[in-house]
Structures are given as structure tokens and as C-alpha cells.
């Protein structure tokens, strides 16, 4: 039963949820003795106040687009890939190995090779959870959480051992060769005499992210595979009747999801100013992807908007933490509230709105 118009579903409900999350966040600020309004202003300034800040916001948004898409693709098949974090790390590992091993003559080649490796490694990291889900019904949520932990173990092993240059103390790979460095957006802006993005690391990966959005949109709504993914996600029994192989589609969907998460590495590993793979490179982006996908209603357009919002929150929150005594973890709190309200408490927001629409007769007319 469509109880309310589509715009209410995709715009009104998330906006109200977001407002509720904002109100509770304000209460948290008050509880720790911060003026929420001041905090908001600081965060806004931190997010877009200077060209550097703006650049960082876009940089983080790029990360979140990748992980948001990863979560969303899986959601369409009713799968909850909570392993973005580990897949991002593995993506970084793939990119680092390929870029450090081969002296790529030009960044375009490095981008193609590194991006492919990142996607491949991200996808590989989800093979076993996907297989166990598809074949043995082991819950993807728990297996991917376990794989997150194992990913950070593996990453540290690689960074503390094989990938660490002689004599370096920091647990990190060596710097990537200069030739493989991706152009930053500011490099491009400078060609037009602008300094729009300052020294922030936002780089051409953002265009790859946008391309990925278009690709996901086409995949989900315009290909047979996407049709089958959605069918499986909506009704497993019907998919079975139609001859859609749950095992294959589950595997493929999760592999695509893992690849998208892995591709985040081109931004946060290859795209930064001093490209190298560091410990904990994902920085929570895998989890933020969940919030981004939920808020973006699993649609690429929504995901871009949500990613920008979360990029601003992440960057603004860091700035708030630097400028005041508030810990940067406040961002995690806000993120939790957004997940709670747009994800789990969806019904709490939706049902009064539905009732309003039903009462005022704006719902789509339904025949008997």
C-alpha cells in the first residue's frame, strides 16, 4: 500500500529524521557544556570556511561515496555488508602493492592498475563471507565484522613487515613513487589560476567516485544483473521461482560491494598528498558508509548528498575538536544518531507522517 507520495518517502522522512538526530546532538552538546549553536557554526566553518577545509570535506565525501555505494549495492540484495572497513584496508593493500612494485611511468597507468588492484583486493576480502552467506547461510553481518578485525591484523602485519622500508619506525608502507601520484583538484584549479582547494588532498578520485555512482545507478536499474539483485533482495522465494540463483547473485553482489569499498583506496591511499599506506587507513569510512547509504535511501544521488553531508560533518568535527576541548568522537555520536533515526527508528518518523497523509487524503488512491 502506498500510503504517501514518493517525495515524502525520499525527502520528507529523511529530513525529519535528520532533524531529530540534530536535536539530540544539540542536547549532547549542551550536556558537555558546549553551546550547540556555536558548535554548529564552528563545524560549518570547519567544513567549508576555507579552501583547505572545503577540499578536505570533498576528500572525505569521496571516501564516503565509495563506501556508501558499497553498502547500498548490498542492501539492494537485502545484504548488510558491514565489512566496508576491512575491504577498504585490503583495497589499500592491493593499491600499495601494485604501485610500489611496479614503477608506473604515468599516474593514469598507476590509477588504472592501482584502482583495479584495490577493487580486486576489496572484493577478495568479501569472498569468504559471501560464500558462507550464500552457501551455508552464515550471517554476513557477523562474518564481515570478523573479517574487519582480521583485515586490520593483516594490514599491520604487512605494514610492520613486508611493506615497511628498512629503518622506518612508523608502521606504514614507503611513500609511493612521485610519478604515480594522482593530480589533486587544486593542481587542476591552479591551471586556471585558482586556489580553490588549497593544499587539501581532494583529487581526481572524486570523479571516479561520481563515475561509480553512475555505474551503480545503471547497474541496479538498467541491467539484468541489477534486476536480479533487486528481485532477490525483495523476495528470495520469488527469485527462486524465476530461476534467479540466490547463490550466484549473492556472491556477485557482495563482490561488487567489496570492490566498491576497496576502490576507496585510490582516494585515501593513492590520492593523498604524501601517498602511502598507513595503519587504520579506513578511519571509519566503512561504517560511515552505512549511515550514508541509509540516509541516501540506497540511491546514488542520495548517496552523493549524504556523503557530502558526512564529509562536512567529519571535517567540521575534526576542526571543532581542534578548536575546542570537545573530542573528535562527537562525530561518531552524531553519526550514530543519524543511523538510529534514518535506519532503525524509521518507522517512528514514517508512521505519523503516513497517518497525516492518509488523514488529509493525499495518499495515492487505491482501488479495492
Amino acid at each position, binding site marked *: *500500500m*502506498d*500510503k504517501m507520495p514518493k517525495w515524502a518517502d525520499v525527502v520528507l522522512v529523511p529530513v525529519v529524521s535528520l532533524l531529530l538526530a540534530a536535536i539530540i546532538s544539540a542536547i549532547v552538546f549542551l550536556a558537555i557544556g558546549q553551546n550547540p549553536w556555536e558548535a554548529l557554526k564552528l563545524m560549518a566553518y570547519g567544513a567549508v570556511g576555507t579552501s583547505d577545509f572545503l577540499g578536505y570535506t570533498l576528500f572525505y565525501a569521496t571516501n564516503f561515496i565509495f563506501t556508501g555505494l558499497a553498502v547500498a549495492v548490498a542492501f539492494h540484495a537485502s545484504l548488510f555488508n558491514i565489512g566496508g572497513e576491512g575491504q577498504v584496508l585490503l583495497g589499500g593493500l592491493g593499491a600499495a602493492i601494485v604501485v610500489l612494485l611496479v614503477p608506473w611511468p604515468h599516474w593514469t597507468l598507476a590509477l588504472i592498475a592501482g584502482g583495479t588492484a584495490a577493487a580486486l583486493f576489496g572484493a577478495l576480502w568479501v569472498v569468504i563471507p559471501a560464500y558462507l552467506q550464500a552457501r551455508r547461510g552464515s550471517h554476513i553481518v557477523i562474518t564481515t565484522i570478523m573479517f574487519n578485525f582480521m583485515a586490520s591484523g593483516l594490514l599491520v602485519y604487512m605494514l610492520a613487515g613486508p611493506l615497511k622500508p628498512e629503518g622506518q619506525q612508523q608502521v606504514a608502507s614507503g611513500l609511493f613513487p612521485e610519478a604515480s601520484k594522482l593530480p589533486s583538484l587544486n593542481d587542476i584549479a591552479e591551471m586556471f589560476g585558482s586556489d580553490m582547494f588549497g593544499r587539501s588532498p581532494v583529487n581526481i578520485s572524486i570523479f571516479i567516485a561520481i563515475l561509480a555512482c553512475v555505474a551503480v545507478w*545503471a547497474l541496479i*536499474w*538498467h*541491467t*539484468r544483473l541489477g*534486476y*536480479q539483485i*533487486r*528481485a532477490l533482495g*525483495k*523476495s528470495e*522465494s*520469488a527469485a*527462486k*521461482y*524465476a*530461476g*534467479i*540463483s540466490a547463490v550466484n547473485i549473492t556472491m556477485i553482489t557482495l563482490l561488487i560491494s567489496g570492490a566498491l569499498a576497496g576502490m576507496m583506496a585510490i582516494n585515501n591511499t593513492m590520492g593523498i598528498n604524501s601517498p602511502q599506506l598507513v595503519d587504520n587507513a579506513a578511519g571509519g569510512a566503512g561504517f560511515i558508509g552505512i549511515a550514508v547509504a541509509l540516509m541516501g535511501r540506497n540511491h546514488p544521488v542520495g548517496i552523493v548528498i549524504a556523503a557530502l553531508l558526512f564529509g562536512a560533518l567529519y571535517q567540521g568535527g575534526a576542526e571543532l575538536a581542534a578548536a575546542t576541548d570537545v573530542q573528535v568522537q562527537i562525530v561518531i555520536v552524531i553519526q550514530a544518531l543519524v543511523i538510529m533515526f534514518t535506519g532503525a527508528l524509521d518507522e517512528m518518523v514514517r508512521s505519523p507522517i503516513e497517518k497525516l497523509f*492518509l488523514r488529509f487524503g493525499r*495518499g*495515492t488512491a*487505491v*482501488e*479495492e
Partner: protein
Amino acid sequence: MSEIAPAIELVGISKAFGPVQANKDISIRVMPGTIHGIIGENGAGKSTLMSILYGFYKADAGEIFISGQKTVIPDSQAAIAAGIGMVFQHFKLVQNFSVLENVVLGAEDGALLRPSLAKARKQLKSLAEEYELNVDPDAIIQDIGVGMQQRVEILKALYRQADILILDEPTGVLTPAEADQLFRILGRLKEEGKTIILITHKLREIMDITDTVSVMRRGEMTSTVKTSETNPADLAERMVGRKVLLRVDKVPAQPKDVILEVKDLNITDEKGVHRLKGVSFNVRAGEILGIAGVSGNGQSELLEVLGGYEKATGEILLNGEAIDLTGAFSDGQSRRARGIAHVPEDRQHEGLIMDFTAAENTAFGYHHDPKYQRNRLLMDNAAIMKDAQEKMDRFDVRPPNPMLAAKNFSGGNQQKVVVAREIERDPDLLLVGQPTRGVDIGAIEFIHQQIVALRDAGKAILLVSVELDEIMGLSDRIAVMFDGQIMGERLPAETDEKELGLMMAGVTDGETA
């Protein structure tokens, strides 16, 4: 009007589920010590009404009087306290609990379990003796048959000392013999002065056992009559609101070559239960083979095997060529490619994706068809839309809007979308499961006509239905299934409902002949 107060009196009950008005201003009175029948089409609101009486749903409006006393029933607790017991259409049992635990659940005597269980065990024994309701108190529910499970449900009610017993379609899952046993028990209970409400689709049961009967249609209570003052035809008419054609108009079949040949089909499920035991039959071009049987006797599995989504051993030949039953090509896609179309038994969970638009649903299962592709990569959503629009127009699906999600159509129109999709493929073989379950009478006639038309176009049709009337009306040949086996084949003209009913209960060919 008698002096004694009615056991139950409902006044002005209304209930809406969202925009669906399931019950509209319903009033009814049931006298104590009687059996009251309620009939009505699928979705008429029978279960809803009884669930309100039992406190499962809350009515939007209306009042309930028990033995003349106004009673508020906000939850089942209150209903039980008022002496009401209900056996739901879909049993409400905890599958991995024992019979005893299920009976005790909610009717324990104290915070500790042991004394309650001991007491219940004793009581169960005496109830079993009193009403011939034998069950092993320590059996686990998932290990016993549906007939047994139903006994547990009745025992649950009796254990709670129910004076009013509601049974919602109790015989749908029973063999005729089990049903007879049930009716004997009900008779006993009635003699003891208990009041019984019986919901059923089977007019014969109404005629046999009830004292009064109410008819519901589209959420309204259309009439209540003494059973002795009515007859099946009259009731049918009251049920659908007009004269019902109990027969389907069709010319005699002209069977040609064998299209489908099934040989010695066997299925054992993961629990080790034999679902199909050596099933063999064939269907010719231009004929309808109807498969009758009480649900749960292997018909669903048979359709699933033929439709390609259940594995089996044995042999299936289509147009003389073997079909892969276990390997990589035993899936729905390859079956469709071989010219088998399938209207599944459960349109909501199999035939349609309720959240997909009607257009997307008309391509469902045929999404690989080249006519839906724009190129190797992309699907042609415009072509799907156009195709859907045409099909919906031809099959008179209302509203004819391909952009509407399937869940927004009524059951009958949903079924039309499925039937349109499958019949329009012009298949060699059409599998049809319960084509008119939950479909209104107008749509039933339309769908029946379409099936007959396909037959007349020289296609083979395998029809599975639990409605004997439908089987008798549509089929050119009838096979009866019981316990995973084909009990025998009959021609409609040479058999009657009584014989088929016996076969459905497992009485073998020889014995009936």
C-alpha cells in the same frame, strides 16, 4: 427471540487495515450450545472478525457481549478469561516445544514450571479420554502431522476451559476421515453445551454440522439463516452476490501428442521425508490434466520440480526430450527456455515481487528475453513498459497502470498479471497452481476462460488445485495425489466428488472400484 442471552453478540464491529476495510459494521448473535457456521469468499473478513472476538486484533468500532454481558476484549488474555478459545487458520504453536509445553504456555499455575507441567499432563490425559483427543504429550510439534497439531490446538482451548470455541477453516488441511473425526468431537462439545463457531469454505460441512450460518461478503455480514432453511446453491449465491456458474463452459478436449511425460519422480527432503514417491503421468497437447488432493500431499513439490526450482530423481520428458533434473540446467531459466510456463501456487511469494512495478513483474522470470534488452549490457525499460501495458490491457488488469507496484493491486488483478505473463509466452506446457485462490468470482471466470483457450490452442496444461469444483470443472482428466503418490486417474464424466474425496484420503484404486 428467546429468553436466554446469546453466548456471543457482536454489534457494529468495524476494522480497517490501512486503507482496506476488512470488517464493516458487522453484527451477529450466536446462541449457546449451537454450532454456528461462517462462510464467505477469500478475504471476506471472516478471520479478521473472529480474531477481533479473540482479542488478536483491536476493532476500530463496535461492541462485544458475552452471555449478555458487555465485554471489552483488548487482548487474547481477556478473551481466554471470557471463556473463548480459538483454533487459528494458521496454527499458533511453538514448533520446537512439546505438546505439553504448548498446552501449558500462558496457562501456567505458578512461577515454576514443574508443577504446572505435572498438572497439565494429568489433565491432558483426562481430556484425551473424554473427547478421544489422543496425543503424546511429549511429542515435539514439528514431528507430528497437521491433524495432530490441530488436536493440540483444540486441547489448548479446552485446557483453558473454553466455553466458546472458534475454528477457522479447520478442515483445509485434513483428509476427509480426519475431518469426520473432528466433526464427531465438535458434536460432543456441543452436547456438553459449548458454543462453536466454524469458519469454512465447504458448503457441505456447513450443511452437515451447523445449526445456523452467516454469510460474509467483502467485509460485510450479508445474511444469517438457520441451516435447515437453506441449501448449498442458495448459500453460494448469497456468498458471491449473484448466481454462480458452477460449471466452466468448454468444448470437449482434442488431445494430441504427449507433451509432458513424467516417470518415477522421487523427492526426499532434508529431513529425510519422502515428498514424492514414484510419481508418473503424462499430459498431451490440447488437454488439461487436473491434479486433485488435500494440500501438503506433494502437489507443490511436483510443481516445483517441473518449474525447475526443486531437485528430484526420476525422469521428465518434454516433447520426448529429457529435462535436466539435478544439474546446472535444472533451474527456472532453462525450463522457460524449453517452453514451460508456470503460474505458481503462491503469487505473493513466488509469482510476483510485491515491491516491483507491474511492468517489472511482467518481465519477471523472462528478464533474459532479447525483446527486453536494449543491448548486451542494458535492459530496455521502455520496451518492458510497452509490453506490460499491452498485456494489462488485454487481460483487463485494473487499474491499467504499469508503474503501480504489484502490492497495490487486488489479489485478482495480481493473479491476472501473473497469468498474462505466463500465458502470453505461448508455452508448450503451462503449469498452473491454485489459479483462483483468493481471487474474486469475476476474475475466476476470466482466468478459467484463458486456461481453456490455451488448451484449445493445442497446448498442454497441468492444473493443480485443492478446490474439487475447479478440478472437476476445468480438467479433461483428473489424477488424485495422496502422500506423494498418484492414487489413480479418472475422467470427470466418470467420477464424482465422493470417489475423488476417498482417493484424496488415501483409499486406493482397487478398494473404490
